[in-house]
């Protein structure tokens, strides 16, 4: 019996030392909290899917909490940043949305969701950077695999058509 307890204690100590090791890595900034907690990408993806469903159902506050949790858990996840940005955008917190898109693009410069949505927000603000973001979004998602990519394509087309119309009108005026 004593032996069994000893064995269990040794295992517990080993586990504890592993957790301590991960905590130290986290404190040094080498590991994320998701790694400390042992959260895998598949688990994160499942959580993100719930967040997307909540957002689609209009339960934006709950979706925000989920995505904020994902971002805190793994700040290196560009997808989570971009998804949180879309929730902020819907909540009307546009500056925070742009900040999240920018954070996503800092990790993954070709993230279509971040590019498309930030591009649109910049255009709303009247900033020229929006064109670049939108056209980049179309380039990184040429087949419209994401909803954001499809919207970026439609926006680019729409702007182009409108611009041509305007140019024509300008040319006709003396």
């Amino acid at each position, binding site marked *: 019996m004593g032996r069994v307890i000893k064995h269990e204690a040794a295992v517990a100590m080993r586990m504890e030392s592993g957790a301590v090791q991960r905590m130290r890595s986290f404190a040094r900034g080498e590991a994320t909290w998701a790694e400390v907690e042992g959260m895998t990408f598949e688990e994160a993806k499942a959580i993100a899917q719930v967040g997307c469903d909540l957002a689609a159902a209009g339960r934006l506050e709950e979706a925000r909490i989920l995505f904020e949790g994902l971002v805190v858990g793994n700040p290196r*996840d560009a997808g989570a940043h971009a998804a949180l940005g879309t929730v902020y955008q819907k909540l009307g917190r546009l500056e925070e949305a742009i900040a999240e898109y920018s954070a996503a693009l800092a990790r993954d410069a070709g993230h279509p969701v971040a590019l498309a949505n930030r591009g*649109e927000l910049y255009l709303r603000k009247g900033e020229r950077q929006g064109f670049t973001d939108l056209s980049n979004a179309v380039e990184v998602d040429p087949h419209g695999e994401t909803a954001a990519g499809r*919207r970026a394509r439609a926006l680019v087309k729409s702007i182009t058509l409108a611009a041509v119309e305007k140019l024509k009108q300008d040319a006709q005026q003396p």
Partner: protein
Amino acid sequence: MVDFLKGATNLLASPEGTAVEGAGDTRGMTPLISHSIKTVEGVATGNVLLAASGAVGVAEDLKKNPAAKTEYAAASGAAKTEGYAPILPTGTSALDPKMLDYEAALKVLEANFDQLDLADGKKSGSLSKEELRRAANDMSLSPQLRSAARFLTENAALFERVDSSGLLARFMPVVGKLYNDDRIKLSGVRSELKRVGEEFARYGRPERPRTPKPEAETCPPSTGTPGTRPPSTGGPSPGTPSPGTPSPGPRPPTPGTGPTPGTGTGGGQGPVGGGGKPPTSKDPDFREYLDAVAVLRDNWGTFDTAAGTKDDRVTREDMAALLANPAASSTLKKAAQFFKDHPEYFDRLEMAAGIDGRDGIIGWLDVKAELELSGGGKPGTSPTKVSSARSIVDNPNMSIEDKVQAILGAISTETDAEILQVMDSMASAGEDRAALGTSDADKKKAATLDGNMRELELRLQRLLEKRKSMFDLMSNMSAKFNEMAKTAISNLRGA
């Protein structure tokens, strides 16, 4: 909903930018928009209706895809799992530790592909198994390169993996068969390296198994005690090689002694396989495999005729027939069962001599070549020890008392040999210690030697205790057997 587009259009078509050609370049827009503008302008000037219908379609698209739709798009490639815990806990991996050697071998091959390709004087753009085998034995090549080549020749399954690896094979497995021509190409090596990297990222990097230090077990005996272990580290042989001795006898180290000059077992201290030893010796089943091959060698005739015909070849049918034969001994069945349970080792053995490729037939040459290559034929190692113990146990002419005594005697002989070995090591360590000076480097060496000496002393003490307990046990058993016999005799006398 799309009011902001007006503003955007103004930005795009502002007065100073009426020249459409300049729009893309001067405002930092990508060629995509500039090109779209030009194209649409051309269409619009020619056919206004078409442009209008295009605008309607765009509006529908925008309706279908509302702004800021929440979606989770993970980054592509290995970056998507960055920052998340691996599927398995750190330090564990579902992958074979051999994959580490495989990766190292691929890297070496990739870096030296041209050199190997030109080894036969012509550049063919690919490497065959035969070329790799030659490279493994080519002493003019670096040890790392030889080890890498040897690794791939000895691991047929991994060779096949590189062989059928190509640009399209990953996406269309059927295409992999087209690549499978028993020749390795550089593109295949690169593609395979990428694949291995992805597997490591997904399943975790395997760790090399910790093997006990082999020095104590493989030290060459200096006393020449008969029956002790022969040198197996691949170093210079202090003993006398006996080339004419048949297989059960002592076998000298391979380099430079066999018909194939410099087979390279003592060669590589490279990244693959840990230097002079066969790389696959790290497999957990490798020892068992060598035992099975040794059994096959010692009982070749029985295996050969198991299926009914003597054709000097052993097939899977022979193995199955042997397993089904109730008269076959457990040792033979164990060996046959091993090959049945480990088809990869069967494949390895049947291709050991490099004759006829993978045809499901093990020839005598395969067995011989495998034992020579992997050092499995060396006597004094565990298989022989096991078989000698088994021969005692199986001996019908010995009583149970004799058997126990004989086994204890065999063990004590081994202990004696080990004691001699330790004492020899202590003597050489003492000599080394005495030869050291007073410099810093010497002091460091002296400290190391002192540590080694303490370890040896402890080991010697342990061995002596073991020997003493062995004698006590033997003596006690003798006394007990004697007492039993006396009691039995006195009982018989009284009856």
